[in-house]
Every structure is written in structure tokens, then in C-alpha cells.
């Protein structure tokens, strides 16, 4: 086995075809995760009676266990649950018809939801309560005040965290190979083992991930500048 620098390029080209899968997993899990996260964060902030302990339990469990166990629990547990319910209620739907990538979507969304809820919560906490009171005093309702005053500021405050979470999910999507989804990592594995050039293939995969991460960071910093326009000091 000898180092073959030219193969890095060959591998890079071959792995490119797997980028969409990785991006799909990342985008879907971040979007659904964000929705779950906002819901969980609001439940925790407003201490909704019954749901509050549930939300706390969810966040603690997900943050305390590795992403790999979430994926495997969903992968092995969900079919049992669905097939059990299907047999009980006589549905025609069976777990076999869930595509492999579906398990990745579901499990990573659940994972992202818990982390996102912390991001959203710290963002909301960063907004001064006086802002909400001021909005109330000029006659806004709470949903209006949240939508127009609190959320935009919270978003600006939590943007760096949000971008970290997106990058985290991008990196986390490499785990999808355990449920045989062909993402960048799995593709690198395939390219590596068919050509018996492991180092070069993984180097190519690393370069792609590095580039993607860099891209996300750039985009975030542009959005951050845009979103913090109101926050400039000095005289307008």
C-alpha cells in the first residue's frame, strides 16, 4: 500500500455524488429540530404544567446520551412499535416500507430538537424582559410581542449557536452509515474499499466536510452582520 496523491482527486469526484444525501439529512433534521426546539423551549420557559417535566426529561435524555444510541434505538425500536400498533389496529402500513433514510431523518430530528431547544432557550433568555413589558405597554398581545419584538432579537443572539448546531448536525450525519444510508462518509468507505486506498478516500471526505463547514460559517457571518444591523453603536 503506497500513498497515491492523485487518487485523492479521483475519490473527491466520486464522493461528490453523495453530498446531496448528507445535505438532505442535515437540512431536514435541522428544520424539524428547530420546530421541536422552539416548542420545547417555550414549554420550558412558560412552565406549561404537564408538558414541562416531559420536555425537561426529553432534553436531558437526548443531551446525556450519544447520537448513535438515538439512531439505533429508533432503528430497532420504531419498527417494533409501528408493527405492534399496526397489528393491533389493523393498519395496512408496515415498518418495512420506511426507507432507511427515514430512520436517519426521524432520529436526527429528535436529536437536533433537544439541542435546538437549548439554543432557542438561551437566545430567548438573552432578551431583556423589559422589551416584552414595553411591547405590552403599547398594547401588543403576547403572541404579537413574541413575534415582532422578542423572536427577532433572540434569533440575532442565538445565531452563532445555531450555526454551531447546524455544523454539529452536518458532522453528525456521518452516523447515517450505520443504517446503510450512502452519505459522504459511507461513500468514502465504498470508494476506499473498492480501490484499497483508505487514507486518500477519507482525506477527500475530510476536505469536502471542511469546505462545507467553511461555507456554513461564511453564510452565517453574512447573515449575522445583516441581522445585527439594528445593534450598531453610536449615532445612527
Amino acid at each position, binding site marked *: 500500500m503506497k500513498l497515491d496523491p492523485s487518487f485523492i482527486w479521483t475519490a473527491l469526484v466520486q464522493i461528490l455524488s453523495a453530498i446531496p444525501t448528507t445535505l438532505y439529512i442535515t437540512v431536514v433534521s435541522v428544520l424539524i429540530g428547530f420546530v421541536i426546539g422552539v416548542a420545547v423551549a417555550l414549554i420550558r420557559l*412558560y412552565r406549561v404544567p404537564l408538558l414541562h417535566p416531559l420536555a425537561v426529561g426529553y432534553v436531558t435524555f437526548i443531551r446525556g*446520551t450519544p447520537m448513535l444510541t438515538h439512531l439505533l434505538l429508533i432503528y430497532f425500536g420504531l419498527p417494533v412499535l409501528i408493527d405492534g400498533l399496526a397489528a393491533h389496529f389493523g393498519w395496512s402500513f408496515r415498518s418495512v416500507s420506511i426507507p432507511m433514510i427515514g430512520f436517519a431523518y426521524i432520529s436526527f430530528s429528535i436529536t437536533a430538537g433537544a439541542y435546538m431547544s437549548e439554543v432557542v432557550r438561551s437566545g430567548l433568555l438573552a432578551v431583556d424582559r423589559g422589551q416584552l413589558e414595553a411591547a405590552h405597554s403599547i398594547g401588543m398581545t403576547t403572541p404579537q410581542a413574541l413575534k415582532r419584538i422578542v423572536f427577532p432579537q433572540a434569533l440575532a443572539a442565538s445565531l452563532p*449557536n445555531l450555526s454551531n448546531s447546524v455544523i454539529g448536525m452536518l458532522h453528525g450525519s456521518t452516523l447515517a452509515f450505520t443504517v446503510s444510508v450512502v452519505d459522504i462518509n459511507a461513500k468514502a468507505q465504498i470508494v476506499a474499499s473498492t480501490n484499497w486506498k483508505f487514507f486518500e478516500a477519507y482525506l477527500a471526505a475530510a476536505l469536502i466536510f471542511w469546505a462545507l463547514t467553511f461555507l456554513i460559517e461564511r453564510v452565517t457571518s453574512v447573515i449575522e452582520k445583516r441581522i445585527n444591523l439594528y445593534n450598531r453603536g453610536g449615532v445612527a
Partner: protein
Amino acid sequence: MGAQFDISFVFSFLPKLLGTLSTTLLIVACSLLTGIIVGFLVALPRLYKVPVLKTLSEIYISFFRGTPILIQLFLFYYGLPEIMKLVHVDMTRTPVLVFVILTYGLHTGAYMSEMIRASVMAVDKGQVEAAYAAGMTGFQAFTRIVLPQALGIAVPVFSNLVIALLKDTSLAFTLGVMEMSGKAQTLGSLTQHFIETYIALALIYLVISFTIEKLLLVAEHHLLRHERRNTPEKKLFKINKSWSYRRIIAELGPGKGGTGL
């Protein structure tokens, strides 16, 4: 899809998984140690703005934060022996655990250096000036004024990093290391009780990360005892301002975004 779900298996798997806990903790401890040393070495050129070294450490941090740890694991496992072959060092007999610890150590090192840098920079510059005004030397000001404050700021990030590292060790099984998740996989395929094994595995991880978090929270409260006020800390939408500001700096900056694998 395996045998019927049976909760009793969870309890019978727990002690079996706990048997491999030592491997997991060994990986965590060794990589943490490596990570702290590497982190300091990498943070210093950036803090003191040493010309060439600064760029190198920036590239190092960018690479290790910009690629998934799973890829890094494979990269080191397959790449290091080949590179070492160029200088005629044979690594074929090196245990896999060495590669695992090295990868995790360097990975954590990148985050550690960011943590160290951010928490040193989060200490108000006026504090150092005040220390100089009181006649302290640079070294005295650093060890007596900056370091104690930086430590307090760093603890929440540190705690996140340790827990992230603990969870990352679940990937070591891909290289065939028999730590907890590797053991869980083996148990699962032996008995066909996959769900039960992974529930047991999740429970163990939960307990350990909860313990680490609580321990470090105590440390944080101790280190930040001068910062606290007597007012209750958490109200709806309101937490003590100076406290929250520090915490937000600490949590925004160099952490893994909470999303450890």
C-alpha cells in the same frame, strides 16, 4: 427484527456493559489529558500572536472543528501508519486504542484551545490594568487575577466538552475497540435483543454524563462564588445580568454548539 421485547434483558445487560465502562473512561481520561496539553500549546500562539505558529494553530483548529470526528478516526487509523512508513516507523503492531486516543485527544485539543482562548479573553482588560496599577508583575496579574476568573468562565464549556467527548467515544467501535457501544452491539447481535441493549447503553451514558455535569456545576459555583448576587438567579426571561453575560459568552463561543455526537 429480533426477539420479543423483554424488559428483564435491560437489567441483565447493564452489568455486562458496565464491565467495559473502564475502556470508555480510559479513552475519555487519556484524550482529555492530551487535549488539555495540546489545547494550551495551541492557544498560546494565538493569545500572544506569534507570527507563523498562529497561522498553523488556526489551520489546526479549523481542520479539527471543520470535519466530523468519525472521518478523523478513519483518517488517523489508515493514514498515520502510511505516513510513518515514509520515515520508516512500523505502526502495524500499534494497538487500535492508541489511534483512538490520539484522534480524540487532538479533536478535543482544538476545542480546548478555543475554550482557553475565549475564557482568557473574556476577562476584562481593566482587571489586568488594575493589577498593574496595584504594582503586580505580568505573571502575578495573570496567575492571581486573570486565571481564577478565566477558570470560572471556562467550566461550563469544559463540562460540555467532557460530556461531548464521553459521547463521542461511542464511535470507537467503528475501529473495533470493545468499549460500551461495541459491547452493546455484540450483545445485541448475540441475543437478538437490540432494543434492550441500547436502552441499557443509553441509561449508562445518561447516568455518567449527569454525574459529570453535577460535579462540574459544583466546581463552577465554587469558582464563581464572587460573582453571584443575593438575588434569585432565574426568573422568567430574566437572569442576573453580569452572571448571564459571562455565561452567554462562555456558551456561545468555543463550545461544540452542544451537538456532540
